């Protein structure tokens, strides 16, 4: 495997991000998703039966991954060391910045797939449903920290600006141009 793919975090940042794997990211994200489900239940209606499926999300440039069951107010997110291979209905693998771009709708999932920036396996129907639900959710960084009003706008501006810079810095695909 090549040392560094286009759009992946540079080695130094990966090393710096490694301790994040030990933080209680899972419980924090579980709370954030459940809070979001209470605010925008229609997003989870869109998922229908697929809300019960498990999605393993693997940032290819980090040593940990997330296992998510997006079941509305009963949603669950676990953060795991990469080695702890967990069976899941769907596995999605891509550089972290690409995954975040898909989450906030900056990047187009099909374009990322055509360009091989993401790889997927498992139940394609569940993944398509999740992709479409996320697309409509209009998620912003503030949704993840539960910030609203002026603070929410500040969080969004800073994180989105930071992500834009990071994408340029790492050469991550923008709008899906061929990588």
């Amino acid at each position, binding site marked *: 495997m090549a040392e560094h793919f286009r759009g992946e975090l540079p080695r130094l940042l990966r090393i710096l991000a490694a301790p994040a794997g030990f933080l209680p990211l899972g419980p924090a994200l579980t709370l954030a998703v459940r809070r979001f489900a209470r605010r925008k239940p229609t997003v989870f209606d869109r998922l229908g039966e697929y809300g019960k499926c498990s999605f393993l999300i693997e940032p290819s440039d980090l040593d940990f991954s997330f296992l998510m069951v997006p079941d509305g107010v009963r949603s669950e997110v676990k953060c795991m060391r990469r080695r702890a291979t967990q069976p899941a209905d769907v596995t999605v693998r891509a550089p972290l910045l690409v995954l975040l771009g898909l989450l906030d709708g900056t990047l187009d999932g099909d374009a990322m797939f055509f360009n091989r920036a993401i790889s997927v396996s498992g139940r*394609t129907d569940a993944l398509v*449903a999740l992709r*479409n639900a996320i697309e409509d959710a209009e998620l912003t960084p503030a949704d993840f920290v539960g910030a609203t009003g002026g603070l929410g706008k500040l969080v969004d501006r800073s994180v989105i600006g930071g992500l834009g810079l990071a994408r340029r810095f790492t050469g991550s695909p923008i709008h899906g141009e061929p990588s």
Partner: protein
Amino acid sequence: MSLELVCPAGTPSALRAAVEAGAHSVYCGFRDETNARNFPGLNFSPDEMIEGVRFAHAHGAKVLVAINTFAKAGSMEAWKAALANAEKAGADAVILADLAVLDHAATHHPNLRLHLSVQAAAATPEAIAFYADTFGVKRVVMPRVLSVEEIAKLNAAINVETEAFVFGGLCPMTEGRCSLSSYATGKSPNLTGVCSPPEHVAYSEDRNGTATRLNGFTIDRFGAGEQAGYPTLCKGRFVAGGKTSYLFEDPVSLNAASLIAAFAKAGITALKIEGRQRGKGYVTEVVRTFRAAVDAIDAGGTEVEVGRLLAGLVEGGRQTSGAYKKTWR
């Protein structure tokens, strides 16, 4: 008169993105088998449609509701409900293909403007006159098997508007008549609203790259770094005569931006962008780029470099002007 840009929306947020990016009209469908993009998690509930139409109208854009699959014999309820819900939402037109649905709309919803879907594959003055005279159809979406010259000739012989696809995924077969997906999965865009349904699609990775399987049939294999396409049978690679090749069609996207001026000259009313299954990122970029291209041609300016600007969004990383410039062998 300037060309109307008809843009795709698979979700309410994509509808807002399309309108904000400059769409003159947005087309979308309900979340069931009545529309030909019946993918999991996609499309609109009746309430979302009402809200979508309200948003579009507030911004000066129209909403065209696609109810363009073929109704099941003896069980037309979903299609009847879709027509009623489209009218209730205040849709500017419905896009239909099936004779029974057209008849029901003409009889029970006389105020709904009727457009004929590409799925009806009406490509002759006689067929179009039949739909116009019998059901009052006002616009026909052109099958993607015609050249610009053929559309110009057709326009001279009919008295309804025409709409032509200008960008996006391509069906190389005549729409509404392709049975490849039915053959492999038992489901098709014509009846269930989805070609190569995702529940039948599986990707697996091994040392040689990624294999795409459709209901157990391996339809393609991509090496690492090789551009991928949609998992439809028509874009699969098969062995025939001892050679492996894209037997039906390469994974390419339609891009007829260089023909916008020719389309206007051929008497086409509206240009359609494919991609209701695509995300907001795609919708925003493609609509904004094409709106600039249409406005530039309108103002007598030069062509916008659409091909280069949208290169990263296209299937297989390649673009074609499709049949519009094709000389058939």
